[in-house]
Every structure is written in structure tokens, then in C-alpha cells.
């Protein structure tokens, strides 16, 4: 077969082109011209005429191909479309005053070093005739090409994605930019996808072979980052619009940190306190985005009033963004999209931060830029009062330190010890890897994101106490609005997500796993004596599984009790330690290391405690 002489099939690229063309062909096109540029062997010629009643006209430089097509009874013309200066004139001569309904360039643009003049000529024809244009182009960012390139391999081939004659290589982003610069805009697409492209070799390549950990990991990352990893050829239908050349300038320098504050406008006094804390920051290298969620006019005015009350230098850096849909994760995603900072940190509208909250993150960035930056958060019970006719908050307890000072990925798999205000996330995770908050989660969206983020970029701990997470004694807060059953369901969802994909562990975490396994082994009951009539291995396995299930249940029960609305509304986590006679508050991270007996003690102590009984009314359902 001659090079590029590929027959039409409904299933192949040409079938995709015809299907797309059929969807977007202008009304009343019967008898009009379909101009096929870089037509080669005109694989779609007869189909265009037969299916749509168009008159096919092919244009190419290759005399051999043109002769072959001409012999099939199709109209063809020879023109050098790579020669600058006369492309539109040449095409106008070919059209010769006839009405054009559609234009196609199938796998042709990549053979031209600078296709801008050809695209401009096509746009002119599309505008003049009210025509539609259809393009196909090989995708150089196909997974097979990308994975091999990442591992040091780049191989041209006689045809295919890395055809040796290709002069310009396109991915989705660069193709959109080239079209926009010429004034062409996609209105439909019918991409031709191949899980295994012509670059899917050598056989068994660990990055390409389906089912390998590496392949699954790369696929997960790639799918989040950009959706066209399996696209072999882009097949797009375009119409004309304004010419919008893309300037490839560096992103304007933003601040170090974008602070995203979620609010429903129901806690204005608390919001004012958050903003006050930001006004007191020793580092002012930040901007603030206040996300107002489903607010009434009165609540919006309250938020605007709170913003107007801050010092001028801070007010200038605050943007209020209204969101009228979605959940907590939606708001964070909006914050990510709006952010200009290198890092993004989220505050709820009742959090408090110390003067070095931003500075501690900024100091970490100098040494560990690119990682998730983490500081330490304290917890404090608080209440609301009305003093001399003015609404206010009132600290109800001293601060406690229930959260781990140093981050452990393994421990965070079972328990989140990083309230979100104590982490700053690199914005590049969203910008470059497409990492978004999971809006199917109604709680724990921050935990889920943190685990995914840390897995990819790692974490740097400052060890500094820089924030206070307030639990409300008598009224709801963002976390206590959700009943514990819902919380458990969300935790299961996070678990399932983690279990469904390969996870990259930060360095040092295997040591933590070994430690946990050894502890569990040491704590496990000795297996029963072997009995010849039994399958000992099966019995041990059965008992082990039962133990693991039981321990998981105990962990979940403790975690859900500690996070429950009624428990937080009562004496606080530290009381658990007192109740169980250890005299010290429980650190959330310690729950993981407790024996089964200790876990049962904690559960019994909470459920029999006076505060638990008193707050029974808070446990819905």
C-alpha cells in the first residue's frame, strides 16, 4: 500500500470525520463544494459526495496521489500549501466562484512548519461562504508518547504519531492556541482514540503495559491533568471567530499565598475575627478570596461590611466571589480557579490564626518549595455570647493540642490530623495536574485532597503552632453540621478512592508501615495450636481477617465519636484521656496505636460519660 493511502471506514479516523461533518454541515449544502486540503489519496472523497450530495474538490502537492484520485473520477488540483504568500489566492482559484459548504484538512497541518497562513486562508473561506471546517491532527501528547518520553525514549517512525515528516507537533492546548490565533473555534469534536497507538511498543514496557502499577499510576495522574491521553487524532469541527493570538508570556507573578475563606454569611462576627487575624500577619505576601456561598442580600451586605472594616492594604487584596451552587468542595475548587498565589490555604469563617501563620508557610517554601507546607493547629472550645447588646465569641476552654506535630502519611490514612488551615497547598497541583476537590464528598473533602496532594508532592512540617481550630459549644460549626453516619460514609469513600489507585508514598513512610505491622503482629493473639485435622493456614487467615475487621470497626467507632457533633459540643477530646484514667488528652494520632482493649475503653468511656448523655439531643437520627 502507498504511504498515507488509507481507506475509509466507519470505524477509523475518516469515519469519525464524516460523522462530525454530518453533524455540522450547514443547511442547504446540497451541490456545494467540499474543499479537502492536503487531500492525499482522498479517502473521504466518494463518501462526501455520496452521503451529503456535496461536490468533492481535493487539493494536494503530491502528483502521484492526485493522479490516482483523478482516475477515480474526483476533482483534484495541485497546489503547494506550505509555500507562504499565496495560499488564499491558490485556494480561491480552485474554488472558482463556486459555493463552499465545508473545508477539511485531515492530517495535513502537522506537515507544515508554520500553518498560520493556511489556517487564515481557511478562516477567510469559512467566513465568506458560511462554511464549516473539519480538521484531524495526530496527538503528540498521547499517553504512549508521553510515558516513553518521560522515561527517555523518543522515536520517529515512517508514519503514525511521530511520523518522520511531521514538521509541527500538536497537543490539545497547542492546537487550540493555533486555531484561536487564526480565528477558528471548535464547535464539535469526534476524536479518534486508541488505547494502544502505533507508539505502543516495545511489548511489555512497564510504563505502557496495562495493569502494571506504573502504568496505572501514570494513567491516573494523566487523566486528572489532561483528558486527551488516549486521543490518537483530534477530529474537530470549527467555525470562524475573532483572531486571538496567544502570548506565551510567563504567568504574572502572584503573591506567595492565596487565602480562601468559605462563608455562608451567617457568622459575621467570626468572619471579622478571621480578617482581623489576617490584618495582623507579619508577612503580607498574600491575597484573600472570600467565597460567599448561597448568601442572601442581607448576608452579602454583612460580608461586604466585614471586608470594608479591614485596613486598606488588606481590603485591596480581598476579592469576594459568590457561588450559588455546590457544596464545600465546590467552594474550594472555585478558590483554586480564582487563586493567583503560588500556594493556597483555606480558612473557615470561624478559624483563628497567629501572626506568623503566613510567615511560617513562607519560610518553609524557601527550603521545601513545591511540597505541601504544614504547620501545627491547636483546638479550642468556644461559645457565642451577647454582651451589652453586641454579639461576640467567647473562648470556653484553653487550647488543646490534639493534632500530630509531624505529618505521617500512613497515620493520615486512618485519621486526619491536619485541620485544613494548617496546610498550604501548591496551586500547581490544580493548575498543572488538574487536582480538584472531590465534590461528591460532603465532608472530609480536605482530608481526601491532602492525601492526594501529599502523595504527589510530599510535605514539609514547620512544627510551629500557627492556628486555632474552634469547636462550638452550643451552636453548629462546619464540621458539626454533619451527622456522624455521613462522616463515616465519606471516610469510606476516601478509603475506596485510595484503595482503587496506586499511591505514591513519601520517602520514609515505608518505615512507618513496618513499625505499624510489627506493632500489630506483636499485639496479635498467638495463633491456636495446630490441629492436624484442620487447615491451619486457612484458620489463621480467617482469624486474622476477623481481627482486622474488628479493629477497623473499633477505629471507626472511636474516630466517629471524637468527630461527632455531640462529642465536640461537650467536653472535648482531651476529656477522653481523663475518662479512661490515663489523665492525658488523646492525640488523634495516638488512636492508631491503641490496642483493641484501649479502644474499647475509650468507646465505653465516651458513651457512659455524663457529657455524652447530656448531649444526646444533638445526635440526630
Amino acid at each position, binding site marked *: 500500500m502507498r504511504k498515507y493511502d488509507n481507506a475509509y471506514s466507519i470505524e477509523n479516523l475518516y469515519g469519525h470525520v464524516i460523522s462530525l461533518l454530518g453533524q455540522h454541515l450547514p443547511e442547504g449544502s446540497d451541490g456545494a463544494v467540499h474543499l479537502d486540503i492536503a487531500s492525499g489519496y482522498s479517502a473521504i472523497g466518494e463518501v462526501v459526495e455520496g452521503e451529503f450530495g456535496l461536490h468533492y474538490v481535493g487539493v494536494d502537492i503530491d502528483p502521484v496521489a492526485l493522479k490516482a484520485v483523478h482516475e477515480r473520477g474526483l476533482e483534484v488540483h495541485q497546489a503547494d500549501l506550505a509555500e507562504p504568500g499565496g495560499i488564499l489566492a491558490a485556494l480561491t482559484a480552485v474554488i472558482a466562484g463556486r459555493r463552499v459548504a465545508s473545508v477539511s484538512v485531515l492530517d495535513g497541518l502537522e506537515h507544515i512548519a508554520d500553518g498560520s497562513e493556511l489556517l487564515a486562508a481557511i478562516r477567510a473561506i469559512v467566513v465568506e461562504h458560511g462554511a464549516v471546517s473539519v480538521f484531524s491532527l495526530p496527538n503528540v501528547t498521547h499517553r504512549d508518547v508521553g510515558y516513553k518520553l518521560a522515561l527517555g525514549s523518543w522515536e520517529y517512525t515512517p508514519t503514525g504519531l511521530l511520523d518522520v515528516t511531521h514538521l509541527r507537533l500538536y497537543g490539545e492546548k497547542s492546537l487550540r492556541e493555533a486555531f484561536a490565533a487564526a480565528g477558528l473555534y471548535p464547535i464539535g469534536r469526534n476524536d479518534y482514540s486508541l488505547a494502544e497507538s502505533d507508539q505502543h511498543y516495545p511489548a511489555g514496557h512497564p510504563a505502557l503495559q496495562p495493569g502494571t502499577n506504573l502504568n496505572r499510576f501514570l494513567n491516573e495522574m494523566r487523566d486528572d491533568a489532561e483528558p486527551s491521553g488516549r486521543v490518537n487524532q483530534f477530529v474537530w469541527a470549527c467555525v470562524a471567530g475573532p483572531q486571538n493570538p496567544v502570548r506565551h508570556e510567563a504567568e504574572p507573578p502572584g503573591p506567595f499565598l492565596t487565602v480562601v475563606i468559605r462563608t455562608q454569611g451567617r457568622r459575621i*462576627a467570626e468572619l*471579622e*475575627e478571621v480578617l*482581623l*487575624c489576617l*490584618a*495582623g500577619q*507579619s508577612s503580607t505576601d498574600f491575597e484573600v478570596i472570600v467565597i460567599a456561598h448561597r448568601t442572601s442580600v442581607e448576608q452579602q451586605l454583612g460580608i461586604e461590611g466585614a471586608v470594608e472594616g479591614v485596613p486598606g492594604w488588606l481590603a485591596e487584596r480581598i476579592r469576594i466571589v459568590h457561588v450559588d451552587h455546590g457544596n464545600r468542595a465546590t467552594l474550594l475548587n472555585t478558590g483554586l480557579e480564582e487563586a493567583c498565589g503560588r500556594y493556597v490555604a483555606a480558612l473557615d469563617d470561624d478559624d*483563628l*490564626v*497567629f*501572626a*506568623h501563620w503566613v510567615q511560617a508557610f513562607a519560610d518553609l517554601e524557601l527550603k521545601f518549595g513545591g511540597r505541601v507546607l504544614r504547620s*501545627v493547629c*491547636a483546638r479550642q472550645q468556644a461559645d457565642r*455570647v*451577647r*454582651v*451589652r447588646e*453586641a*454579639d*461576640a*465569641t*467567647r*473562648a*470556653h*476552654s*484553653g*487550647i*488543646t*493540642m490534639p493534632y500530630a*506535630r509531624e505529618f505521617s502519611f500512613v497515620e493520615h490514612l486512618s485519621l486526619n490530623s491536619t485541620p485544613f488551615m494548617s496546610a498550604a497547598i501548591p496551586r500547581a497541583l490544580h493548575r498543572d495536574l488538574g487536582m480538584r476537590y472531590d465534590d461528591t464528598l460532603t465532608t472530609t473533602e480536605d482530608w481526601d485532597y491532602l492525601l492526594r496532594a501529599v502523595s504527589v508532592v510530599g510535605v514539609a512540617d514547620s*512544627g*510551629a*503552632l500557627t*492556628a*486555632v481550630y474552634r469547636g462550638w459549644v452550643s451552636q453548629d460549626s462546619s464540621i458539626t453540621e454533619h451527622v456522624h453516619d455521613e462522616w463515616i460514609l465519606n471516610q469510606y469513600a476516601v478509603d475506596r478512592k485510595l484503595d482503587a489507585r496506586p499511591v505514591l508514598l513519601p520517602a520514609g513512610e515505608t518505615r512507618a508501615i513496618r513499625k505499624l505491622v510489627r506493632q500489630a503482629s506483636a499485639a496479635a493473639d498467638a495463633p491456636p495450636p495446630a490441629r492436624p485435622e484442620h487447615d491451619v493456614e486457612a484458620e489463621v487467615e480467617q482469624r486474622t481477617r476477623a481481627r482486622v475487621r474488628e479493629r477497623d470497626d473499633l477505629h471507626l467507632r472511636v474516630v466517629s465519636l471524637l468527630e461527632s457533633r455531640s462529642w465536640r459540643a461537650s467536653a472535648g477530646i482531651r476529656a477522653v484521656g481523663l475518662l479512661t484514667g490515663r489523665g492525658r488528652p488523646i492525640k488523634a494520632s495516638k488512636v492508631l496505636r491503641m490496642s483493641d482493649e484501649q479502644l474499647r475503653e475509650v468507646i465505653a468511656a465516651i458513651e457512659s460519660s455524663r457529657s455524652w448523655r447530656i448531649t444526646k439531643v444533638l445526635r440526630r437520627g
Partner: protein
Amino acid sequence: MCSLHAGRSVHSPRCSKTPIGIAEAKQLPLEHPKDYDRVSGATSWASGAFSMFRTAEFRDLGGFDHDSFFMYGDDVDLSWRYRLRGFQVIFQPAAAVFHDKRLGPDGEWLASDTERYFSAESALMLAHKWSRDDVLERLLESMSGFPDEIIRRAVAGYLDRRERGALPERLDPEGTTGEFVAGNYAVHRW
């Protein structure tokens, strides 16, 4: 006027018609633990970190006692003199002010030598000035045995002043105004 007694809670809302001498704003991110009335805001003393008072009354009371208190305790002393004169001291949590205080990584106070010295000295001076010999004796006894040399130096400084007759004039001979509760100058909420 409201009367306050050592170890008892702060004023009740019934005192709301008593003129206000000092109004204190709430400090953030670390709120001071001293108790205040949840309706009237009445409290034992107002922190000098951010308080407001009328100039005339302040001058009439003689201002801060800078001879007795180099650092710390001067605000407690001023507050109690207002109360002795029949004014209320009010804490208004709706007025918030940012005070750059920081804690250690485990949530502990990081007191400097200067802070420890002058805190100890002011405790002794307050007990003396506000006619609480019982408190003074307990403080002298416990501080003298402190392992922290800074505290023992503060005790020595106090005793030197006493020997030199450089202590301030004592106020409130009945000792009913000043509050000395578990080492604090008010009932604390936690």
C-alpha cells in the same frame, strides 16, 4: 458599686448602672482566660494591651503606678483603683484586637526571663499594695523556694524595696477589691 471578693466570680448584670471606668477589647488569636459577665461584661481587671478610659478620670486617679510596676501588673492595679473609686471594669468581646502572642509548638507559653522576673515582682507588689498579707506571705514562701533563679531574684528585689521603705502606699485596707485567685487576678474560665 459592686463588691468583689477574692475567689468569687465577677460582677453581676445588676451592676450595669454603675459607671464604666475602663472598657477592654478582646485579644485575638489568644483570648485572655479571665472571666467576665456574659451579659454586662463586668470583670476584675482590664488588660493594658488594649483598653479605653476617659482622660479626666485617668488623670484624676493618678494614671499608671510606674513607680511600683515596671512591667506587668500596672493594668491590674489601675483597674482595681477604678473599681475602688466606684467604677466598673468592662470586657467587651465584640470589640476584638489582634495581639501578636505566640505559643510554643506544644501550645506552651514561652516566657522570657524579663517576663518571668517582672511578673513575679508585680505579683508581690500587688499583694502588698492591695492589703493582702495572706497572699503576700504565701507568695514569698513559695517563690523563695522556686528552682528558677529569676523568681528568687524577684523576691530579693521585693525584700530590698521593703527594707528601703520603697514599697507603695497600701490601698483598700479591708482587702476586698483585689482578686487573688489561684495565682491570677480574677477567676479564670479555664
